[in-house]
Structure formats: C-alpha cells, structure tokens
C-alpha cells in the first residue's frame, strides 16, 4: 500500500487556500494599472457592442435583449475561464508540486475559485442591468446563489479531471480550447431556449452551463423559480462531475512528480 500524498502534510487547508487565492489576486491585479477596473470594463464593453448590434444592426424580437444575452454570457465566461485556467494550473505550478507535499487537489480548485471575484463583479453588473431594464428584485432571486454554487462545483470537477489529464497528455489544453468554442453554440446565448426542439432539450438540460443560463433567465427575466427538474439535473450533473473529477485526480496524482 502506498500512503496518500497528504499523509505527511499537516498544514491548514484554509490558510493554504487563502494564500493561493491571495497570490492569484495580487499577481493579477498588481500588474494592471487599472486593477479591478478591467473586471468592470470588459463586460461593459461587451454589453455596449451587443446592445449596438442587436438594436441597430440586427434588431431582435426578444425583449430586453442586452440583459438576455448577458444572462448567457456571464455564466459561460466564468466556466470557460475556470475550465481553461484550471486545466493548465498543475503545469503552471509544477515547481511547487515537485518540491512540497501539500494536497494537490487544492491547486485546480484554487484556480477556479480565483475566477470567482471576476464572476461576482459580472453578476453585479448583470443585476444592475436587469433592474435598469425595469425588473424588481424579488424572492426568486434567492435561487441565484444556489445556481452559482452548483456551477462552481461543476467547474471544480472539470478542473480536477482535466488538470490531471493535462500533466500526462499536454494536448489536453487544446482539446479544452476547442471544446469551449463548441460550447458557446451549445449554450442558448443568443437564442431563447424555447426554440430548441423538444427532442434535443434533454441535451441542454444535462449541460450544466446551458442549465445555469436557463435558470438565470427564469429567475431574472421571467420572475419565476427555475423548474425543479432543471435544478435537480443541474445538481446531479455537478455532483457527479465533481466526484468523478476527484476520482480521476486521485488516481493520477501519484505520478505527477514523474511527469512534471
């Protein structure tokens, strides 16, 4: 029997996770003269362009179209960024992994969580836009954190699995990059989920990002609770993905040292 990698590490998870997140924030925001401004500016620019295109160039019949599109883009952007940075996180931190015995799982998870500040700012902007479009905050908004947490859990699961694979097969990051471009069209960003033919709907429901987008729209633009079947599928897929991701990671981590 080989002992678990963590057996000789007796530190504090919270202290380590906090420090890894702080490192990421400091490195990311210290090297930008605008700092947090970029987290606000980039979605604003995106919103401006979308509003222009879909009101002046190609007017859409969907009401409040900028808010509608942003409900799709915010969860999608968070996931894409988390999946990609999570996938390369072990290789980026090869120096740490070859030298210290801290629990390796913490690296991809920290890399996903590091994107959460950016995610929170974007959600804040989205909520402002929704209110500006004439909606009132209501009790259904309480479901938003649930959906957000489920999406984070899903992203952590994907980051665990793909970061471990990326150590062994360095092509993994390019597979992820391609998958993200496909995902943009497999998530109802620019179209309403109602136009999806019934027989394909299950594919969207089982895709946690598409499900999150539909739930965001239910909550923010339709003033209703997301359907129970949707939330339960989202919960199931997120939990299974996290479990399987952790399992893959645990199986592969024994030989990280040899491959990094």
């Amino acid at each position, binding site marked *: 029997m080989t002992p678990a990698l963590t057996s000789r590490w007796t530190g504090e998870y919270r202290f380590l996770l906090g420090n890894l997140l702080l490192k990421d924030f400091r490195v990311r925001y210290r090297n930008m003269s605008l700092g947090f401004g970029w987290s606000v500016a980039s979605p604003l620019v995106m919103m401006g362009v979308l509003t222009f295109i879909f009101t002046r160039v190609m007017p859409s019949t969907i009401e409040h179209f900028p808010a509608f599109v942003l409900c799709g883009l915010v969860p999608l952007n968070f996931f894409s960024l988390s999946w990609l940075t999570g996938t390369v996180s072990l290789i980026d931190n090869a120096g740490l992994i070859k*030298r210290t015995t801290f629990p390796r799982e913490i690296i991809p998870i920290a890399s996903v969580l590091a994107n959460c500040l950016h995610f929170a700012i974007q959600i804040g902007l989205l909520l402002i836009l929704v209110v500006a479009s004439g909606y009132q905050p209501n009790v259904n908004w309480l479901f938003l954190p649930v959906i957000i947490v489920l999406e984070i859990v899903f992203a952590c699961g994907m980051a665990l699995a793909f970061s471990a694979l990326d150590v062994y097969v360095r092509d993994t990051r390019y597979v992820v990059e391609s998958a993200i471009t496909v995902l943009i069209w497999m998530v109802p960003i620019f179209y309403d989920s109602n136009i999806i033919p019934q027989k394909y709907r299950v594919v969207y429901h089982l895709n946690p990002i598409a499900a999150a987008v539909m739930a965001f729209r239910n909550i923010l633009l339709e003033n209703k609770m997301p359907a129970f079947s949707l939330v339960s599928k989202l919960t199931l897929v997120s939990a299974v993905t996290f479990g399987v991701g952790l399992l893959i990671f645990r199986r592969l981590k024994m030989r990280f040292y040899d491959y990094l």
Partner: protein
Amino acid sequence: MNPDHAVTFEGVSKIYSRSTGRKLLRSHVEGWFGRLPREPFYALNKVSFTLEHCESVAILGSNGAGKSTMLSMVAGLSYPNEGRVTVNGRVAALLELGSGFHPDLTGAENIELNAALLGLSKKRTDYLFDSIVEFSGIGEFIHEPLRTYSSGMMMRLGFSVAVNVDPDILILDEVFAVGDQDFQVKCREKVLSFKKSGKTMLCVSHSTATLNQLCDRAIWLDHGQMVMDGTAAEVIAQYEGRSTAKAGG
C-alpha cells in the same frame, strides 16, 4: 513497518520507461499499440537500507546516480515502482530553495505562501514571521517584490522559511552554497543545531568536507545501485579514491 526506524527502504526500485518523457497524445497512442520500445530505465535499482532516528546520512554519487530520486521518495513526492518506502516523522525537504516563490509577490507575502505550502498553521506563521525575516537577513527589502532580489537573497529567504517547519527528518540537497560567507556560517550552525537536537538528516553535497563534518554515515549510489553503506569517513574515502583513480586513469 517499524516505527522505531526513521526511514526504511525495502528493495526499492524507481523505473522510468523511456516514453515517460513524452507527453503528447501521439506518443501515448503509439504506446498503447506497442509501437514505442519500452526500455526500462532504473533510476534506483533494488535499494534497501534503514535509517534510525537521530542518524545523519550523506548520499554520495555522481550526477544521475539516483540521489534526487531517493530524496524525493523520502520526502513523499514520488513513489517506488517496486519495493516499499516507510517514513516515520515529519519531513522537511530543502530542495531547490526558492523555487516556490513568486517574483511579483513581496518577500513577506512569499514567506506566508511558502509557510502555508510547507504545512505551517496561520498562528505559527505569524509567530515565526519576525524570526524568519531576521534569520534571512533581508532587512527592509522584505516588503519589496521578489524580482528585485539577488539570487543569493532569494535562497536565503527559502532556507529561512524551510528550516522553521520544525521537522523530524531534514533533507538537505546542496543547500550549503546558499548566500555569502556569513550566511553559510549561519546555515551550518543551524544544521548543526538540528543534528544536536536529534533530528534525522539526509544530506547531498559536492563538498565532501562538509559531509564529513555533518554526517555519521554515508551511502554511495552509482547508476541507481547501492555501492557502499558505512561510516561517513570510510565511504567518503573510498568514494574520493574512486574519483581520483578515474581522473588518473
């Protein structure tokens, strides 16, 4: 497993198949279909030894002899393909000092990050912070980003954090060349104080004089195999004899 021993290696082998270095999808697929020759390379070949608590051992051998492979297994970073490694106690590995540092963080921020990685608690890190800074001798530069440090300063900081983990087993890989003369003296004093307080030590160094001074026992490795295991004076004498004989011939 005997908890009376600090480290036990029982017939330990570490094998790298030659395709291990290739990380592209193509080589994996070719590997599955058996198109790549899988010549095993033994980084360590059936090595057995036992280290008692309080023992300090020098590991000798030329480049590629398997010293780092052995240390990485004691540190719990990598695992044997055959045999069994048992380690009893908390290990601190001083390998490639400062490699876990981030150049954009200040010295102080790096101390905290490194301490967290090495397994220190928040409370203990706060408690030790001043003594770490003082030991490193970095002074007011501690609040400057690490990229402004000289390489000597960086290694001094790395050493100062790592020796504060309070290990039972200390692994020292070429750390006696850290910093300037003054710091090297401090470094040696610290390591000697570890030895006096009864820690187990594994040392690798090109300076056999240092090893002679620090270690009671020595293990000589060559191409992954153990050549000799005995008192430091004996093994070092033999090892140096071999080197000069080779140079002469």
